[in-house]
């Protein structure tokens, strides 16, 4: 319950406060959000598997986000930023679908 409330409050805060992002970060935020989504789905799957740990989740969440941003940042430095960001989104998307499939099996047994 706390979790969902916190999520909604966070979204509301982001929309209402309109925190001004540093311009260097604007290209990385979408990638970071996709990485965070991946971590969330992974955590949900782990919960259904009975192997969930909030500390592991917190660590994996931030490390996922940082690594995704770092990969794209390095790609930008060596001139393949857009290609690498596409690659990261594709890989994370595949993982999200895989996890979603596992969650679906856990909920519907199908």
């Amino acid at each position, binding site marked *: *319950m*706390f*979790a*969902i*409330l*916190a*999520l*909604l*409050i*966070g*979204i*509301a*805060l*982001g*929309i*209402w406060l*309109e*925190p001004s*992002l540093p311009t260097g970060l*604007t*290209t990385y*935020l*979408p990638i*970071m*959000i996709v990485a*965070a989504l991946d971590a*969330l789905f*992974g*955590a949900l*799957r*782990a*919960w*259904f*598997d*009975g*192997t*969930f*740990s*909030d*500390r*592991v*989740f*917190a660590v*994996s*969440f*931030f490390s996922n986000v940082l690594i995704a941003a770092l990969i794209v940042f390095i790609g*930008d430095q060596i*001139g393949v*930023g*857009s290609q690498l960001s596409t690659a990261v989104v594709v890989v994370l998307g595949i*993982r999200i679908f*895989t*996890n979603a499939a596992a969650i679906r099996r*856990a*909920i519907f047994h199908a």
Partner: protein
Amino acid sequence: MPDESDVEARHAADDGSVAGESHGRSLRDLVRALTRPSASQILLAAVLLVFGVGVGTQLTTKAADDPYATARRADLIQLLDTANAETSRLETEIEALKATRDKLQSGVDSAKVAQTEAQNRLDNLAILNGTVPATGPGIRVVIYDPSQKVTASTLLDAIEEFRDAGAEVIEINDSIRVVASTWFGGANGALVADNAAISLPLVIDVIGEGHALEEAARFRGGLVSQVQQFGGTVTITQESTVSITAVRALPQNRYARPA
């Protein structure tokens, strides 16, 4: 994500925070977990709060900014290059079209000038050849010659004097147009011009400068004094509008061709 699952499983085992259930949970468990919040969910809530702020920020950024604000430098440069190439291509097209327009316009102008020139020349030649009616200021000369002594040469002299005085169009008796090839003949009292008999009294309409034409008839030894010697009279009236309607068919040249 098998690796991460393993890692998480190991961590969970170390941590011991996992519920003691053997394996697998159902939707009912999830609902129960959500409706009965425990202290362990605080960290989860904090992480989700951060995630929520990120999503909210991204949503507002996306909504507020134009699509180019988040575009990469390389993409922007490519867009700019494309726009520049398009601009120069369109400018070239504009130049070409302008040149075509100017060419067509000057062509129209010169064609108009040529047409006006040709029309002027045509009008001139038509009046000169007597193929069209003409109107303009001039004089009307009426010769009363009861003794019928006016000869063809007298008439020809008078015509020549009118021409010297600048006569542009000459007509006799409202029916005979006098042109370059007109000839006069016949005996006294039965004058003939271009095969047409000239009835009396003789009327000559002349278009030209009225005063000069009148002087051309009145000078000593001219038409007026000659006719008066025969006992006839001449009346000359200057008119602001002399209308000459007699026309003459244009003879076809059999031999001469424009060079």
